[in-house]
């Protein structure tokens, strides 16, 4: 019973840490930098925004709404762990899409057309590029600060062993809620920008593009290295180099190539670029390795 009891009640789970929350939004594409988390409610809610100043206000407002939503309405999902948490998140996104499709004030299922940016057309791309890039930098800095605090340690502890973290009294549910809420805040901000950039949004095709952004962000995060701050950035750049190359030279087979990259990544390269670099050159990342430990290990 001794061993069995632990086995039954203390199953070991691993999950991406909070850095991945930050990582999942990087999407570099040509000259534009988008944030995307793929829930899409934020995108839908971003409608009817006029003028540059109003855009900023609305972004923060939507971010705040999603912040509260993340904090208050996802307790049930946050009790899920590992792959079930991911499935639960997808379920919430699908449910949100259906709900969004019934809200007339945001256009319902038909979606809404966004007003044009009151700037000369030649500045349009540059404006959204700068806005998205600035938001990416701000989010990156916030997450960087976040992970220099106790929050960062707690997120990593939850990643390594959530049951242990709970047994040590860490309020894991609250940490996950706050992590989600912070991620949702930035998603909301970006959603407002994205909606205006695209010019037209509706729940089925634009707000929840699972086959594109939904997969891309996961691929970027995995390729760059989950659980690291710079991994998703590197992943986004690498992913888009590969993507643009295949889209250009292997048109027609681009999705096959993308699928292959994902499979190779998941099966043979789980640690991602940053993980590989950390393992290869630990001292450059401040990781101390005791060479004698290899000999000592197992010699308990």
């Amino acid at each position, binding site marked *: *019973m*001794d*061993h*069995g*009891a*632990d086995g*039954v*009640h*203390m199953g070991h789970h691993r999950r991406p840490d909070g850095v991945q929350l930050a990582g999942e939004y990087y999407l570099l594409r040509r000259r534009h930098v988008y944030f995307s988390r793929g829930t899409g409610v934020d995108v839908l809610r971003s409608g009817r925004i006029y003028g540059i100043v109003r855009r900023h206000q609305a972004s923060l407002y939507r971010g705040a709404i999603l912040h509260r939503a993340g904090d208050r309405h996802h307790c049930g999902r946050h009790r899920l762990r590992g792959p079930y948490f991911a499935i639960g998140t997808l379920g919430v996104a699908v449910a949100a899409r259906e709900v969004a499709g019934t809200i007339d004030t945001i256009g319902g299922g038909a979606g809404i057309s966004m007003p044009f940016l009151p700037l000369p057309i030649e500045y349009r791309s540059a404006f959204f590029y700068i806005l998205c890039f600035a938001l990416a930098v701000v989010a990156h800095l916030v997450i960087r600060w*976040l992970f*220099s*605090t*106790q*929050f960062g*340690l*707690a997120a*990593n*502890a939850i*990643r*390594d*062993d959530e*049951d*242990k*973290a*709970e*047994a*040590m*009294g*860490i*309020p*894991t*549910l*609250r*940490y996950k809620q*706050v992590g989600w809420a912070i991620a949702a805040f930035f998603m909301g901000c970006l959603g407002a920008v994205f909606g205006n950039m695209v010019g037209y949004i509706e729940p089925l095709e634009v707000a929840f593009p699972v086959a594109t952004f939904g997969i891309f962000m996961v691929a970027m995060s995995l390729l760059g290295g989950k*659980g690291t701050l710079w991994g998703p950035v590197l992943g986004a750049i690498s992913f888009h180099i590969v993507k643009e190359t295949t889209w250009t030279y292997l048109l027609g087979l681009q999705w096959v190539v993308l699928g292959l990259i994902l499979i190779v990544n998941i099966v043979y390269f789980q640690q991602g670029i940053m993980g590989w670099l950390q393992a290869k050159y630990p001292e450059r990342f401040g*990781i*101390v*390795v*005791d060479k004698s*430990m290899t000999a*000592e*290990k*197992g*010699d*308990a």
Partner: protein
Amino acid sequence: MAENVIEVSNVSKSFGGVKANVDITMAVERGSITGIIGPNGCGKSTLFNSIVGYHPIDAGSIKFENQEISHLRVGDIARLGMLRTFQQTRIYSKMDCVDNMQISVSHRPGSQSTMFASRRGEIRERAEHLLEFVGLYSKRNLISGDLSFGQQKLLEFAMALMNEPKVLLLDEPTAGINPTLINGLIDRLRRANEELGITLCVIEHNMRVIMNLASHIYCLSNGKMLADGKPEALQNDPRVIDAYLGGH
């Protein structure tokens, strides 16, 4: 007479048809070192899991500082000041030893302000002091998953101390580690009890360890409380001898 910090009364727990604990009653005095022994599969770890809230009990009552805790979750009980360590050592294996220690600070105040606190100097200082206490100071910057099993046991113990618990439940703290480390661990357990005032409740199979360490011992067999008393009395109890040496 010292007050009881843990009171377990008539606790029963079954898993399907398996009766893991049957009508268990025991108490742990504040400031004491209490031992729990019994053959493999007798329900010791199930009792631990029941006490710290890993599963609901079928019947009975569990009190911590006179507060009923049998309905509370693991985290809630930990934040009351009762922690446990695991038979199979559990640490945050991808973090270094100091980070393992720093995140193990008590969350009893539980305010959101501590969530975003920087990794303050005094926390790190205490972490390093406790790593020195368990003999891991020289390994403090190593990734904890790279430590040997015995060292991971010591780290888990230090993490528990970092939390400043009132009661610490240790599930076979000496299992799988060599005699040299065992002697050091016994010494540190005693010091934690005497110097830091932490009440200890220890499951242990190593009779030399538990007889030297505990002031009161409970013996379980087949899910039931077989006997309890002072170590010297229990050592000569024919029921205990029979449970360990006969029939199993």
